């Protein structure tokens, strides 16, 4: 992997969104046969940069060169034609089309002008197999797949285009360790085949495993490019956030749980997705949910929050059975639940509405008197939340969609904290969030717990569960397979119980191959 002439170069790229400066004279240079990691905190401009590369967004200034020739992509299709293919942070799959349709979307095989569905299916199956996702049926509709499967489809789709430069923007953020290892195997093979790969992730361990070159971005500009492994994690993180960085996870307090649990589930079952789940959650406690993705963790959170119908079993709050039939009831006084949902863009926020409207949206009943909003009180609540979570926004009257992913996520959390919930359910809240922000969130969770909140925390990232949780329930096939307490919570234990029966060794082999 000697430094050859760069395959692709970007110079002096700038992009503004209204008053927001997303990129300022950014540079990047990519070579063939290597994996190039891009690092940076939320809002650093990573996604914007690769969107420009992929022809989705037009730069305000700057130039791009492919094979030494200046290029200018008018559309994603043009970039594709030049061999640049991107797996975007926001998934770019068509929900109503089948997996096969999605994978072979840009130039399907045709006969007499019509798409040859047999040939297409064959190609799709090949691509799925290459991506290590042969378990996905090519005829199933994308909208019926869970997020993690969709991400695999997205990767298969990129592979099917036979790219020269493949860009993955947080493509693994929703994947579990098993899937990640499959994807890594693919990426390494592609590197060996001579492709140039651009890889964006907030997971430092992934970057350590994959990257050959690294570039760090901050505030829309390149801070440094360096060969992988030449800098320590701490150094890198300090470059990213521009300040010193200490241990990520706050210490766990030793505390004897006493009294009636705030939340208790007894024998919860729902369709074939949840089976006989029982647990209790005390004030001041952070209870983790682990296991492979799609083992019923999300359903459990939704069930507690009153979203699922036909739930069997009982939920007790403060020892008394309650029937929660809707989020409105779940958040009501006496129960005081909050749910940070899975997908902030479709479930947590109204993107075109202002930060202000979004922040107060879950607390409208609190902020109104006789149905009329008390503006002073609203402003006061909002100010407190903006400082508490250090939300970075141009103006609170700007649309929340203009914030970076991490800041959007903070808004989702803040809008619920505004209600001072007694029980907080979190559905993978740190997905696609930079280390700095993650750290803030961990600290916040611990503080909330110390102040008496009960927290139920699902994460696809084992490290988080280990670092944050007092206890972890590992789910498999809709049932609690194991409860890990305190020091028992180790990566080894988590993985072993997540896989239920499979041996831990084979898992490690998979990751290494």
């Amino acid at each position, binding site marked *: 992997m000697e430094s050859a002439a760069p395959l692709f170069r970007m110079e002096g790229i700038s992009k503004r969104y209204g008053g927001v400066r997303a990129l300022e004279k950014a540079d990047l240079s990519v070579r063939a046969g290597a994996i190039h990691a891009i690092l940076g905190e939320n809002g650093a401009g990573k996604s914007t940069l690769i969107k420009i590369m992929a022809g*989705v*967004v*037009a730069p305000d200034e700057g130039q791009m060169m492919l094979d030494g020739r200046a290029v200018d992509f008018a559309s994603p299709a043009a970039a594709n034609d030049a061999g640049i293919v991107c797996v975007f942070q926001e998934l770019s799959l068509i929900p109503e089309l089948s997996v096969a349709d999605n994978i072979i979307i840009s130039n399907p095989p045709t006969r007499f002008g019509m798409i040859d569905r047999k040939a297409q299916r064959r190609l799709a199956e090949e691509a799925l197999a290459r991506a290590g996702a042969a378990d996905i049926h090519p005829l199933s509709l994308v909208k019926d797949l869970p997020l993690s499967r969709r991400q695999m489809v997205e990767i298969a789709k990129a592979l099917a285009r036979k790219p020269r430069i493949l860009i993955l923007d947080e493509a693994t953020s929703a994947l579990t360790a098993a899937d990640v290892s499959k994807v890594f195997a693919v990426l390494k093979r592609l590197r060996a085949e001579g492709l140039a790969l651009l890889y964006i992730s907030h997971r430092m361990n992934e970057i350590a495993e994959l990257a050959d070159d690294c570039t760090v971005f901050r505030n829309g500009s390149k801070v440094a490019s360096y060969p992988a492994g030449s800098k320590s994690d701490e150094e890198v993180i300090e470059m990213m956030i521009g300040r010193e960085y200490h241990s990520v996870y706050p210490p766990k307090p030793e505390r004897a749980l006493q009294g009636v649990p705030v939340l208790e589930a007894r024998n919860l079952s729902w369709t074939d997705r949840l089976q006989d789940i029982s647990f209790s959650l005390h004030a001041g406690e952070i209870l983790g949910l682990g296991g492979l993705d799609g083992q019923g963790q999300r359903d459990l959170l939704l069930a507690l*929050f009153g*979203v699922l119908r036909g739930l069997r079993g009982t939920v007790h709050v403060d020892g008394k059975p309650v029937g929660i039939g*809707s*989020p*409105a009831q*779940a*958040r*009501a006084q006496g129960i005081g639940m909050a*749910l940070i*949902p899975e997908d902030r863009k*479709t*479930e*947590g*926020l*109204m*993107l*075109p*509405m202002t*930060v*202000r*409207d979004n922040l*107060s*949206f*879950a607390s*409208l*009943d609190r*902020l*109104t008197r006789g*149905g*009329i*909003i008390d*503006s002073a009180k609203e*402003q006061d609540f*909002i*100010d407190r939340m*903006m400082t508490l979570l*250090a*939300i*970075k*926004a*141009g*103006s*609170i*009257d700007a649309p929340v969609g203009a914030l970076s992913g991490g800041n959007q996520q903070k808004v989702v959390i803040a*809008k619920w904290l505004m209600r001072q919930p007694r029980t907080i359910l979190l559905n993978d809240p740190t997905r696609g969030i930079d280390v700095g922000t993650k750290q803030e969130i961990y600290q916040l969770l611990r503080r909330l717990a110390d102040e008496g909140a009960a927290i139920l925390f699902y994460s696809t990232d084992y490290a988080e569960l280990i670092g944050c949780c007092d206890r972890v329930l590992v789910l498999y096939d809709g049932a609690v397979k194991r409860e890990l307490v305190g020091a028992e919570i180790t990566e080894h234990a988590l993985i072993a119980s997540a896989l239920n029966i499979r041996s831990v060794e084979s898992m490690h082999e998979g990751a290494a191959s």
Partner: protein
Amino acid sequence: MTRATGRKPGFIHRFDPAVLTAFGCIILLLVLGSLYSRNFLSPDYLLQQLKVASFLGVIATGMMLVILLGQIDLSVPWAVATGAMMACAAAAYGPFGVALAIPFGILCGVAIGVVNGIGVAYLRIPSMIVTLATNAVAQGVMVVYTGGFSPQDSATAAMRYLATGGLIPGIPNVVFIWALIGGAMVFVLGRTGFGRAVYGIGNRERAAYLSGINTRRIVMIAFAVSGGLSAFGGVLLAGYASKAAQSMGDAYLLPAIAAVVLGGTSILGGRGTYLGTVAGVILITLLQSILSVMQMPEAGRQIIYGLMIVLMLLLYGRAPASR
């Protein structure tokens, strides 16, 4: 780190460019009209237009609420007719009936709205189709009713007074009524939890539901209000014409939608201001009136009407470019 800035004064918010351009178009229309006849600028004519616009204004208010939710209400024609006919019919039942005529008419509209609301919010049928069906049902009920009961259909004195009377000489009451309803709508949309919820649902219903909003109730209320306002528009129209007729509402469906959208409200929901709707209503009314008075065959009028709407929308109603 950027600190959150303070809130911009409300009026700056409300004057988005679309609304300003819409008002600009109104002035342009009047100027163009005055080239044809000086009378287009006479106070008499302008007041007359304002009066006629008020009926559309009341109806479009309900339509806007529904459109903000990302829905649409195609039951306007027969909700208008039902309101008018039922109010007049109630008056046949003694002094008590006369007194309750107006509320009764509105109530009938609310009932239609409630059926729409049940269909959209609880049965989750697309609004475009439920409201189409309730419109057909309302028409059926009115036909049975007219044929079977030879109802009274002349407006009560109170209806006449609301529509044509002048509390302040020269300015018809109906203009005040529209102003009142409009003011209430501005308040509701801007300052109440209900209004926020409407915008929220229009932007993303799923997120609104997960935020603990009783989305079905809000949708239900919005359709009920829309039905009620349509019926109230019908009541006022009956007062204006001094009687009710079956076909009263036919001429209000498409103009109501067009007015709301010309006013800058997104048909996809979640975005729009009431001031824009006011501008849209006046625009449509003026356009129809000027075209009707100019001596031109119907064909030419239709063509110009359509072209004008397209042109105005191209001027300011375009979605932002995607790149």
